[in-house]
Protein backbone atom coordinates (compact mmCIF):
# COMPACT_ATOMS: atom_id res chain seq x y z
CA UNK A 1 0.00 0.00 0.00
CA UNK A 2 1.40 3.38 -0.90
CA UNK A 3 2.16 5.54 2.06
CA UNK A 4 0.06 8.47 0.82
CA UNK A 5 -2.94 6.17 0.67
CA UNK A 6 -2.60 5.16 4.31
CA UNK A 7 -4.91 6.85 6.78
CA UNK A 8 -3.54 8.95 9.59
CA UNK A 9 -4.27 6.21 12.11
CA UNK A 10 -2.54 3.56 10.06
CA UNK A 11 0.50 5.80 9.50
CA UNK A 12 0.93 6.60 13.17
CA UNK A 13 0.43 2.99 14.19
CA UNK A 14 3.02 1.82 11.68
CA UNK A 15 5.42 4.49 12.86
CA UNK A 16 5.09 3.27 16.47
CA UNK A 17 5.62 -0.25 15.25
CA UNK A 18 8.81 0.77 13.45
CA UNK A 19 10.24 2.44 16.53
CA UNK A 20 9.54 -0.74 18.51
CA UNK A 21 11.21 -2.85 15.83
CA UNK A 22 14.26 -0.60 15.82
CA UNK A 23 14.58 -1.14 19.55
CA UNK A 24 14.84 -4.87 19.03
CA UNK A 25 18.48 -5.85 19.32
CA UNK A 26 18.23 -8.70 16.86
CA UNK A 27 17.49 -6.54 13.85
CA UNK A 28 20.09 -6.47 11.09
CA UNK A 29 21.70 -3.25 9.99
CA UNK A 30 20.13 -3.34 6.51
CA UNK A 31 16.70 -3.91 7.93
CA UNK A 32 17.04 -1.10 10.40
CA UNK A 33 18.13 1.33 7.69
CA UNK A 34 15.18 0.32 5.54
CA UNK A 35 12.75 0.67 8.42
CA UNK A 36 14.20 4.03 9.35
CA UNK A 37 13.58 5.36 5.83
CA UNK A 38 10.03 4.07 5.94
CA UNK A 39 9.57 5.70 9.30
CA UNK A 40 10.66 9.07 7.95
CA UNK A 41 8.18 8.76 5.08
CA UNK A 42 5.40 7.83 7.46
CA UNK A 43 6.08 10.71 9.79
CA UNK A 44 5.95 13.20 6.97
CA UNK A 45 2.71 11.61 5.76
CA UNK A 46 1.22 12.11 9.22
CA UNK A 47 2.33 15.71 9.45
CA UNK A 48 0.90 16.40 6.00
CA UNK A 49 -2.43 14.88 6.90
CA UNK A 50 -2.59 16.94 10.04
CA UNK A 51 -2.46 20.07 7.97
CA UNK A 52 -4.89 18.87 5.34
CA UNK A 53 -8.29 19.71 6.86
CA UNK A 54 -9.75 23.02 5.83
CA UNK A 55 -10.67 25.37 8.60
CA UNK A 56 -14.43 25.72 8.40
CA UNK A 57 -17.48 25.90 10.65
CA UNK A 58 -20.72 25.45 8.71
CA UNK A 59 -24.42 24.85 9.24
CA UNK A 60 -26.28 22.19 7.28
CA UNK A 61 -29.77 22.91 5.96
CA UNK A 62 -32.01 21.48 3.30
CA UNK A 63 -33.12 23.91 0.63
CA UNK A 64 -36.60 24.00 -0.86
CA UNK A 65 -35.62 21.78 -3.74
CA UNK A 66 -34.41 19.16 -1.28
CA UNK A 67 -30.65 19.71 -1.63
CA UNK A 68 -28.40 19.72 1.39
CA UNK A 69 -26.22 22.78 1.59
CA UNK A 70 -23.61 23.85 4.11
CA UNK A 71 -23.26 27.53 4.83
CA UNK A 72 -20.86 29.34 7.07
CA UNK A 73 -22.18 29.38 10.60
CA UNK A 74 -22.50 32.73 12.31
CA UNK A 75 -23.18 32.18 15.99
CA UNK A 76 -23.62 35.77 17.12
CA UNK A 77 -26.82 36.06 15.10
CA UNK A 78 -28.43 33.11 16.92
CA UNK A 79 -28.79 35.12 20.16
Amino acid at each position, binding site marked *: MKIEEMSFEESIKKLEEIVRELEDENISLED*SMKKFELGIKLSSN*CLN*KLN*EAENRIEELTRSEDGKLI*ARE*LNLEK*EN
Partner: protein
Amino acid sequence: MEDYSISKTKVYTVSELNQDIKRNVEAGYPDIWVEGEVSNFYFHDKKHMYFDLKDENSKIKVVMFQNINRNLIFDIEEGLHILINGYISLYEKRGEYQLVAMDARPVGKGALILAFEQLKKKLGEKGYFDVINKKSIPLLPGRIGLVTSTGGAVIRDIILVLKERFENFHLIVRDVNVQGITSSDEICEAIDELCEYGVDVIIIARGGGSLEDLWAFNTEKIAGKIFECPVPIISAIGHETDYTISDFVADRRAATPSVAAEIVILNKRETVEKIETMVKRARSLISSEVKIRKKEILLLMRRRIFARPETLLDRFNQVVSELNIRLERDIGANLKTVENNLINICRLIDKKNIIDKIYSFKTVIKNSDIRLISTVNNYINLKKSKIKYIMGKIADRNPVNILERGFALLYGVEKDRSIKSVREVNVDQAVRILLRDGVLSARIFDKIYKKIEPGFKNEN
Protein backbone atom coordinates in the same frame (compact mmCIF):
# COMPACT_ATOMS: atom_id res chain seq x y z
CA MET B 1 -97.35 4.37 69.25
CA GLU B 2 -96.70 4.90 65.58
CA ASP B 3 -97.12 2.14 63.12
CA TYR B 4 -93.66 1.15 62.03
CA SER B 5 -94.72 -1.58 59.67
CA ILE B 6 -94.11 -0.21 56.20
CA SER B 7 -95.86 -2.77 54.04
CA LYS B 8 -95.20 -1.24 50.64
CA THR B 9 -91.51 -0.33 51.16
CA LYS B 10 -89.03 -3.14 50.81
CA VAL B 11 -87.30 -4.11 53.96
CA TYR B 12 -83.82 -5.58 53.54
CA THR B 13 -81.99 -7.84 55.72
CA VAL B 14 -78.41 -6.79 56.24
CA SER B 15 -77.25 -9.66 54.09
CA GLU B 16 -79.70 -8.79 51.40
CA LEU B 17 -78.58 -5.16 51.50
CA ASN B 18 -74.94 -6.01 51.30
CA GLN B 19 -75.60 -8.45 48.47
CA ASP B 20 -77.53 -5.80 46.58
CA ILE B 21 -74.90 -3.16 47.09
CA LYS B 22 -72.26 -5.66 45.99
CA ARG B 23 -74.13 -6.38 42.76
CA ASN B 24 -74.64 -2.75 41.94
CA VAL B 25 -71.24 -1.52 42.84
CA GLU B 26 -69.34 -4.38 41.21
CA ALA B 27 -71.36 -3.91 38.03
CA GLY B 28 -70.64 -0.22 38.09
CA TYR B 29 -66.86 -0.41 38.46
CA PRO B 30 -65.66 -3.59 36.78
CA ASP B 31 -62.51 -2.05 35.24
CA ILE B 32 -61.22 1.34 36.33
CA TRP B 33 -58.00 3.32 36.66
CA VAL B 34 -57.45 5.16 39.90
CA GLU B 35 -54.67 7.57 40.75
CA GLY B 36 -53.49 8.19 44.26
CA GLU B 37 -50.81 7.98 46.88
CA VAL B 38 -49.90 4.80 48.70
CA SER B 39 -50.30 4.75 52.47
CA ASN B 40 -50.58 2.14 55.20
CA PHE B 41 -48.66 -0.25 53.02
CA TYR B 42 -48.75 -3.80 54.40
CA PHE B 43 -46.71 -6.59 52.82
CA HIS B 44 -45.11 -8.23 55.80
CA ASP B 45 -45.71 -11.83 54.92
CA LYS B 46 -44.67 -11.22 51.28
CA LYS B 47 -47.90 -12.70 50.04
CA HIS B 48 -50.71 -10.29 49.36
CA MET B 49 -50.25 -6.52 49.37
CA TYR B 50 -52.71 -4.36 51.35
CA PHE B 51 -52.63 -0.56 51.27
CA ASP B 52 -54.77 2.54 51.08
CA LEU B 53 -54.87 4.69 47.98
CA LYS B 54 -55.56 8.27 48.95
CA ASP B 55 -55.75 11.84 47.75
CA GLU B 56 -56.05 15.05 49.80
CA ASN B 57 -59.64 14.34 50.89
CA SER B 58 -60.29 10.66 50.69
CA LYS B 59 -58.94 7.15 50.64
CA ILE B 60 -59.91 3.68 49.49
CA LYS B 61 -58.68 0.23 50.51
CA VAL B 62 -56.66 -1.63 47.90
CA VAL B 63 -55.59 -5.26 47.75
CA MET B 64 -53.08 -6.68 45.28
CA PHE B 65 -52.99 -10.45 45.45
CA GLN B 66 -49.81 -12.45 45.14
CA ASN B 67 -50.39 -13.61 41.58
CA ILE B 68 -50.48 -9.95 40.46
CA ASN B 69 -47.92 -8.34 42.73
CA ARG B 70 -45.17 -10.83 41.97
CA ASN B 71 -45.09 -9.59 38.34
CA LEU B 72 -44.49 -5.96 39.34
CA ILE B 73 -41.34 -4.48 37.87
CA PHE B 74 -41.18 -1.67 40.38
CA ASP B 75 -41.56 -1.60 44.13
CA ILE B 76 -44.71 -0.18 45.62
CA GLU B 77 -43.80 1.74 48.71
CA GLU B 78 -45.27 4.08 51.25
CA GLY B 79 -45.91 7.53 49.76
CA LEU B 80 -45.48 6.47 46.13
CA HIS B 81 -47.77 8.13 43.63
CA ILE B 82 -49.25 5.44 41.43
CA LEU B 83 -51.98 4.43 39.03
CA ILE B 84 -53.99 1.31 39.87
CA ASN B 85 -56.07 -0.62 37.39
CA GLY B 86 -58.67 -2.94 38.90
CA TYR B 87 -62.29 -3.50 40.02
CA ILE B 88 -64.37 -2.75 43.08
CA SER B 89 -65.20 -5.70 45.22
CA LEU B 90 -67.54 -5.76 48.22
CA TYR B 91 -66.77 -7.97 51.17
CA GLU B 92 -70.31 -8.83 52.24
CA LYS B 93 -69.52 -10.15 55.66
CA ARG B 94 -68.11 -6.86 56.84
CA GLY B 95 -69.89 -4.51 54.47
CA GLU B 96 -66.60 -3.21 53.31
CA TYR B 97 -65.48 -2.59 49.77
CA GLN B 98 -62.06 -2.51 48.30
CA LEU B 99 -60.26 -1.95 45.02
CA VAL B 100 -58.76 -5.21 43.77
CA ALA B 101 -55.65 -4.28 41.76
CA MET B 102 -54.89 -6.03 38.48
CA ASP B 103 -52.09 -3.68 37.43
CA ALA B 104 -50.08 -0.79 38.85
CA ARG B 105 -47.98 1.93 37.22
CA PRO B 106 -45.86 4.71 38.68
CA VAL B 107 -46.83 8.27 37.90
CA GLY B 108 -44.63 11.28 37.17
CA LYS B 109 -40.86 10.81 37.56
CA GLY B 110 -41.34 7.27 38.69
CA ALA B 111 -43.08 6.48 35.40
CA LEU B 112 -40.31 7.90 33.37
CA ILE B 113 -37.70 6.03 35.37
CA LEU B 114 -39.65 2.84 34.89
CA ALA B 115 -39.99 3.40 31.18
CA PHE B 116 -36.27 4.08 31.04
CA GLU B 117 -35.46 0.85 32.86
CA GLN B 118 -37.80 -1.13 30.65
CA LEU B 119 -36.37 0.25 27.41
CA LYS B 120 -32.83 -0.20 28.68
CA LYS B 121 -33.58 -3.86 29.46
CA LYS B 122 -35.24 -4.43 26.09
CA LEU B 123 -32.47 -2.84 24.02
CA GLY B 124 -29.80 -4.50 26.15
CA GLU B 125 -31.27 -7.88 25.31
CA LYS B 126 -31.32 -6.95 21.60
CA GLY B 127 -27.58 -6.23 21.79
CA TYR B 128 -27.82 -2.51 21.22
CA PHE B 129 -25.27 -1.81 23.95
CA ASP B 130 -22.83 -4.59 23.05
CA VAL B 131 -19.25 -3.40 22.78
CA ILE B 132 -18.70 -5.50 19.69
CA ASN B 133 -21.13 -3.28 17.77
CA LYS B 134 -19.35 -0.08 18.69
CA LYS B 135 -17.29 1.57 15.97
CA SER B 136 -14.03 3.24 16.78
CA ILE B 137 -13.72 7.00 16.58
CA PRO B 138 -11.30 8.11 13.82
CA LEU B 139 -8.13 9.77 15.14
CA LEU B 140 -8.19 12.51 12.55
CA PRO B 141 -11.68 13.07 11.12
CA GLY B 142 -11.95 15.01 7.87
CA ARG B 143 -15.44 16.32 8.62
CA ILE B 144 -17.04 16.51 12.05
CA GLY B 145 -20.85 16.51 12.32
CA LEU B 146 -22.59 18.15 15.29
CA VAL B 147 -26.25 17.74 16.28
CA THR B 148 -27.20 20.35 18.85
CA SER B 149 -29.05 23.55 19.41
CA THR B 150 -27.24 26.51 17.81
CA GLY B 151 -28.80 28.74 20.43
CA GLY B 152 -27.30 27.01 23.43
CA ALA B 153 -24.00 27.32 25.26
CA VAL B 154 -23.03 23.80 24.31
CA ILE B 155 -22.07 24.65 20.75
CA ARG B 156 -19.77 27.45 21.88
CA ASP B 157 -18.04 25.18 24.38
CA ILE B 158 -17.44 22.55 21.74
CA ILE B 159 -16.07 25.02 19.19
CA LEU B 160 -13.78 26.54 21.83
CA VAL B 161 -12.27 23.18 22.75
CA LEU B 162 -11.87 22.23 19.09
CA LYS B 163 -10.04 25.46 18.32
CA GLU B 164 -7.76 24.86 21.28
CA ARG B 165 -6.81 21.35 20.18
CA PHE B 166 -6.48 21.89 16.47
CA GLU B 167 -5.92 24.92 14.26
CA ASN B 168 -7.73 23.64 11.22
CA PHE B 169 -10.90 21.56 11.44
CA HIS B 170 -14.05 21.24 9.38
CA LEU B 171 -17.22 21.30 11.52
CA ILE B 172 -20.74 20.92 10.11
CA VAL B 173 -23.58 21.78 12.52
CA ARG B 174 -27.19 20.70 12.20
CA ASP B 175 -29.50 22.73 14.45
CA VAL B 176 -32.22 20.86 16.42
CA ASN B 177 -34.57 21.32 19.36
CA VAL B 178 -32.97 19.33 22.16
CA GLN B 179 -36.22 18.91 24.12
CA GLY B 180 -39.90 18.88 23.44
CA ILE B 181 -42.29 16.73 21.49
CA THR B 182 -40.53 17.10 18.13
CA SER B 183 -37.03 16.70 19.53
CA SER B 184 -36.55 12.97 18.99
CA ASP B 185 -37.71 13.16 15.39
CA GLU B 186 -35.59 16.19 14.67
CA ILE B 187 -32.49 14.52 16.05
CA CYS B 188 -33.07 11.42 13.91
CA GLU B 189 -33.51 13.61 10.84
CA ALA B 190 -30.33 15.52 11.67
CA ILE B 191 -28.33 12.29 11.87
CA ASP B 192 -29.70 11.21 8.49
CA GLU B 193 -28.85 14.51 6.83
CA LEU B 194 -25.32 14.60 8.19
CA CYS B 195 -24.75 11.03 6.98
CA GLU B 196 -26.16 11.95 3.57
CA TYR B 197 -23.95 15.02 3.28
CA GLY B 198 -20.94 13.03 4.41
CA VAL B 199 -19.12 13.30 7.72
CA ASP B 200 -16.54 11.11 9.44
CA VAL B 201 -17.94 11.36 12.97
CA ILE B 202 -21.07 12.81 14.64
CA ILE B 203 -21.43 14.41 18.07
CA ILE B 204 -24.88 14.60 19.66
CA ALA B 205 -24.78 17.18 22.45
CA ARG B 206 -26.98 19.04 24.86
CA GLY B 207 -26.55 20.63 28.25
CA GLY B 208 -27.92 19.51 31.64
CA GLY B 209 -31.59 19.22 32.54
CA SER B 210 -34.26 17.17 34.28
CA LEU B 211 -35.25 13.67 33.31
CA GLU B 212 -38.18 15.13 31.39
CA ASP B 213 -35.90 17.63 29.63
CA LEU B 214 -33.55 14.90 28.51
CA TRP B 215 -36.40 12.59 27.57
CA ALA B 216 -35.92 13.00 23.83
CA PHE B 217 -32.64 11.05 24.13
CA ASN B 218 -34.36 8.10 25.85
CA THR B 219 -36.69 7.07 23.06
CA GLU B 220 -36.58 3.79 21.19
CA LYS B 221 -36.57 5.77 17.94
CA ILE B 222 -33.32 7.56 18.74
CA ALA B 223 -31.77 4.33 19.97
CA GLY B 224 -32.57 2.68 16.65
CA LYS B 225 -31.21 5.58 14.62
CA ILE B 226 -27.93 5.69 16.55
CA PHE B 227 -27.54 1.91 16.36
CA GLU B 228 -28.13 1.78 12.61
CA CYS B 229 -25.97 4.80 11.79
CA PRO B 230 -22.88 3.86 9.72
CA VAL B 231 -20.94 6.88 10.98
CA PRO B 232 -19.46 6.67 14.52
CA ILE B 233 -21.47 8.67 17.06
CA ILE B 234 -20.35 10.33 20.30
CA SER B 235 -23.16 11.03 22.75
CA ALA B 236 -22.72 13.96 25.15
CA ILE B 237 -25.99 14.56 26.94
CA GLY B 238 -26.39 16.50 30.16
CA HIS B 239 -23.99 16.45 33.09
CA GLU B 240 -21.51 13.84 34.12
CA THR B 241 -24.04 11.97 36.22
CA ASP B 242 -26.75 11.93 33.54
CA TYR B 243 -27.07 8.72 31.62
CA THR B 244 -29.48 8.42 28.72
CA ILE B 245 -30.31 5.58 26.34
CA SER B 246 -28.45 7.41 23.59
CA ASP B 247 -25.33 7.37 25.83
CA PHE B 248 -25.57 3.57 26.06
CA VAL B 249 -26.19 2.94 22.35
CA ALA B 250 -23.66 5.45 21.01
CA ASP B 251 -20.18 4.31 19.94
CA ARG B 252 -18.72 6.50 22.68
CA ARG B 253 -20.13 8.44 25.60
CA ALA B 254 -18.71 11.80 26.63
CA ALA B 255 -19.44 12.95 30.17
CA THR B 256 -19.83 16.52 28.93
CA PRO B 257 -19.91 18.20 25.50
CA SER B 258 -16.39 19.61 26.03
CA VAL B 259 -15.11 16.09 26.60
CA ALA B 260 -16.76 15.12 23.32
CA ALA B 261 -14.72 17.75 21.52
CA GLU B 262 -11.59 16.41 23.15
CA ILE B 263 -12.43 12.88 22.11
CA VAL B 264 -13.27 13.78 18.55
CA ILE B 265 -10.07 15.38 17.59
CA LEU B 266 -6.62 14.78 18.86
CA ASN B 267 -4.53 17.51 20.24
CA LYS B 268 -2.55 18.64 17.25
CA ARG B 269 0.41 20.01 19.12
CA GLU B 270 0.73 16.89 21.26
CA THR B 271 0.50 14.65 18.23
CA VAL B 272 3.11 16.64 16.30
CA GLU B 273 5.40 16.39 19.31
CA LYS B 274 4.73 12.67 19.58
CA ILE B 275 5.64 12.13 15.94
CA GLU B 276 8.78 14.25 16.27
CA THR B 277 9.81 12.33 19.36
CA MET B 278 9.37 9.04 17.53
CA VAL B 279 11.49 10.25 14.63
CA LYS B 280 14.20 11.43 17.03
CA ARG B 281 14.14 8.11 18.79
CA ALA B 282 14.40 6.23 15.53
CA ARG B 283 17.32 8.40 14.46
CA SER B 284 19.17 7.84 17.69
CA LEU B 285 18.54 4.11 17.56
CA ILE B 286 19.97 3.94 14.07
CA SER B 287 23.02 6.01 14.86
CA SER B 288 23.79 4.04 18.00
CA GLU B 289 23.31 0.84 16.00
CA VAL B 290 25.83 2.07 13.42
CA LYS B 291 28.27 3.07 16.16
CA ILE B 292 28.05 -0.35 17.78
CA ARG B 293 28.62 -2.16 14.50
CA LYS B 294 31.61 0.04 13.69
CA LYS B 295 33.15 -0.82 17.03
CA GLU B 296 32.57 -4.48 16.43
CA ILE B 297 34.28 -4.33 13.06
CA LEU B 298 37.29 -2.46 14.43
CA LEU B 299 37.64 -4.99 17.22
CA LEU B 300 37.47 -7.82 14.77
CA MET B 301 40.05 -6.23 12.54
CA ARG B 302 42.51 -6.01 15.38
CA ARG B 303 42.34 -9.72 15.96
CA ARG B 304 45.39 -11.71 15.09
CA ILE B 305 43.79 -13.43 12.17
CA PHE B 306 43.37 -10.17 10.32
CA ALA B 307 46.46 -8.38 11.51
CA ARG B 308 48.80 -11.32 10.86
CA PRO B 309 47.00 -13.83 8.72
CA GLU B 310 50.11 -15.94 8.27
CA THR B 311 49.50 -17.22 11.77
CA LEU B 312 46.67 -19.20 10.28
CA LEU B 313 49.28 -21.44 8.75
CA ASP B 314 50.96 -22.03 12.10
CA ARG B 315 48.59 -24.75 12.96
CA PHE B 316 49.14 -26.55 9.70
CA ASN B 317 52.88 -26.13 9.87
CA GLN B 318 52.83 -27.75 13.22
CA VAL B 319 50.85 -30.67 11.98
CA VAL B 320 53.14 -31.14 9.00
CA SER B 321 56.26 -31.09 11.10
CA GLU B 322 54.78 -33.55 13.55
CA LEU B 323 53.83 -35.85 10.75
CA ASN B 324 57.30 -35.49 9.31
CA ILE B 325 58.90 -36.51 12.57
CA ARG B 326 56.63 -39.47 12.88
CA LEU B 327 57.30 -40.42 9.30
CA GLU B 328 61.03 -40.37 9.71
CA ARG B 329 60.89 -42.16 12.98
CA ASP B 330 58.52 -44.84 11.83
CA ILE B 331 60.22 -45.46 8.51
CA GLY B 332 63.58 -45.51 10.20
CA ALA B 333 62.30 -48.07 12.59
CA ASN B 334 60.85 -50.12 9.77
CA LEU B 335 64.07 -50.05 7.81
CA LYS B 336 66.01 -51.11 10.82
CA THR B 337 63.69 -54.04 11.35
CA VAL B 338 63.93 -55.10 7.73
CA GLU B 339 67.67 -54.75 7.83
CA ASN B 340 67.93 -56.94 10.89
CA ASN B 341 65.69 -59.53 9.31
CA LEU B 342 67.86 -59.53 6.25
CA ILE B 343 71.03 -59.98 8.29
CA ASN B 344 69.49 -62.82 10.16
CA ILE B 345 68.44 -64.53 7.02
CA CYS B 346 71.86 -63.99 5.46
CA ARG B 347 73.41 -65.74 8.38
CA LEU B 348 71.32 -68.76 7.63
CA ILE B 349 72.69 -68.92 4.15
CA ASP B 350 76.00 -71.06 4.02
CA LYS B 351 77.80 -70.01 0.92
CA LYS B 352 80.14 -72.98 0.53
CA ASN B 353 77.39 -75.40 1.11
CA ILE B 354 75.40 -73.83 -1.56
CA ILE B 355 78.22 -73.85 -4.08
CA ASP B 356 78.85 -77.51 -3.43
CA LYS B 357 75.24 -78.26 -3.82
CA ILE B 358 75.15 -76.29 -7.03
CA TYR B 359 78.13 -78.29 -8.35
CA SER B 360 76.56 -81.61 -7.51
CA PHE B 361 73.30 -80.61 -9.11
CA LYS B 362 75.21 -79.53 -12.20
CA THR B 363 76.82 -82.98 -12.38
CA VAL B 364 73.51 -84.70 -12.01
CA ILE B 365 72.13 -82.57 -14.76
CA LYS B 366 75.09 -83.32 -17.02
CA ASN B 367 74.73 -87.03 -16.45
CA SER B 368 71.10 -86.84 -17.06
CA ASP B 369 71.88 -84.94 -20.21
CA ILE B 370 74.18 -87.65 -21.44
CA ARG B 371 71.74 -90.37 -20.63
CA LEU B 372 68.99 -88.39 -22.18
CA ILE B 373 70.96 -87.92 -25.34
CA SER B 374 71.91 -91.58 -25.62
CA THR B 375 68.38 -92.67 -24.86
CA VAL B 376 67.07 -90.34 -27.48
CA ASN B 377 69.65 -91.49 -29.98
CA ASN B 378 68.76 -95.11 -29.35
CA TYR B 379 65.18 -94.32 -29.77
CA ILE B 380 65.87 -92.52 -33.01
CA ASN B 381 67.96 -95.39 -34.35
CA LEU B 382 65.30 -97.83 -33.42
CA LYS B 383 62.75 -95.89 -35.25
CA LYS B 384 65.03 -95.41 -38.18
CA SER B 385 65.46 -99.16 -38.67
CA LYS B 386 61.77 -99.62 -38.24
CA ILE B 387 61.14 -97.10 -40.90
CA LYS B 388 63.66 -98.80 -43.18
CA TYR B 389 61.92 -102.07 -42.70
CA ILE B 390 58.53 -100.49 -43.40
CA MET B 391 59.87 -98.65 -46.37
CA GLY B 392 61.17 -101.94 -47.70
CA LYS B 393 57.79 -103.38 -47.26
CA ILE B 394 56.20 -100.45 -48.96
CA ALA B 395 58.65 -100.71 -51.78
CA ASP B 396 57.58 -104.26 -52.29
CA ARG B 397 54.07 -103.21 -52.71
CA ASN B 398 54.82 -100.25 -54.92
CA PRO B 399 52.98 -100.87 -58.08
CA VAL B 400 55.86 -99.35 -60.01
CA ASN B 401 58.17 -101.97 -58.54
CA ILE B 402 55.68 -104.60 -59.47
CA LEU B 403 55.86 -103.31 -62.98
CA GLU B 404 59.69 -103.31 -62.77
CA ARG B 405 59.52 -106.97 -61.99
CA GLY B 406 57.62 -107.54 -65.21
CA PHE B 407 54.08 -107.60 -64.14
CA ALA B 408 51.34 -105.69 -66.03
CA LEU B 409 48.24 -103.78 -64.88
CA LEU B 410 44.98 -103.96 -66.71
CA TYR B 411 42.59 -101.01 -66.99
CA GLY B 412 39.28 -100.43 -68.67
CA VAL B 413 39.20 -97.67 -71.30
CA GLU B 414 37.09 -95.25 -69.31
CA LYS B 415 37.58 -96.53 -65.82
CA ASP B 416 40.58 -95.65 -63.79
CA ARG B 417 40.38 -98.69 -61.59
CA SER B 418 42.50 -101.63 -62.45
CA ILE B 419 40.78 -104.74 -63.52
CA LYS B 420 41.45 -107.53 -61.12
CA SER B 421 38.94 -110.09 -62.21
CA VAL B 422 37.93 -111.93 -65.39
CA ARG B 423 34.43 -111.13 -64.60
CA GLU B 424 35.06 -107.39 -64.89
CA VAL B 425 35.66 -107.67 -68.61
CA ASN B 426 33.69 -108.80 -71.58
CA VAL B 427 34.86 -110.35 -74.81
CA ASP B 428 35.63 -107.73 -77.40
CA GLN B 429 35.91 -105.05 -74.74
CA ALA B 430 38.70 -102.55 -75.23
CA VAL B 431 41.24 -102.49 -72.45
CA ARG B 432 44.50 -100.76 -71.61
CA ILE B 433 47.56 -102.58 -70.44
CA LEU B 434 50.09 -100.78 -68.30
CA LEU B 435 53.68 -102.09 -68.56
CA ARG B 436 56.90 -100.90 -67.03
CA ASP B 437 57.68 -98.64 -69.96
CA GLY B 438 54.35 -97.77 -71.53
CA VAL B 439 50.70 -98.50 -72.31
CA LEU B 440 49.11 -101.03 -74.74
CA SER B 441 45.56 -100.83 -76.12
CA ALA B 442 44.00 -104.28 -76.60
CA ARG B 443 40.82 -106.10 -77.16
CA ILE B 444 39.62 -109.17 -75.32
CA PHE B 445 39.71 -112.19 -77.48
CA ASP B 446 38.53 -114.81 -75.09
CA LYS B 447 37.99 -115.28 -71.38
CA ILE B 448 38.26 -118.38 -69.24
CA TYR B 449 37.44 -118.57 -65.55
CA LYS B 450 40.20 -120.31 -63.62
CA LYS B 451 41.78 -119.45 -60.33
CA ILE B 452 45.51 -119.75 -60.34
CA GLU B 453 47.01 -121.47 -57.36
CA PRO B 454 50.53 -120.66 -56.40
CA GLY B 455 52.95 -123.47 -56.83
CA PHE B 456 51.04 -125.34 -59.49
CA LYS B 457 51.83 -125.22 -63.11
CA ASN B 458 49.10 -123.56 -65.20
CA GLU B 459 47.30 -125.41 -67.91
CA ASN B 460 45.65 -123.39 -70.56
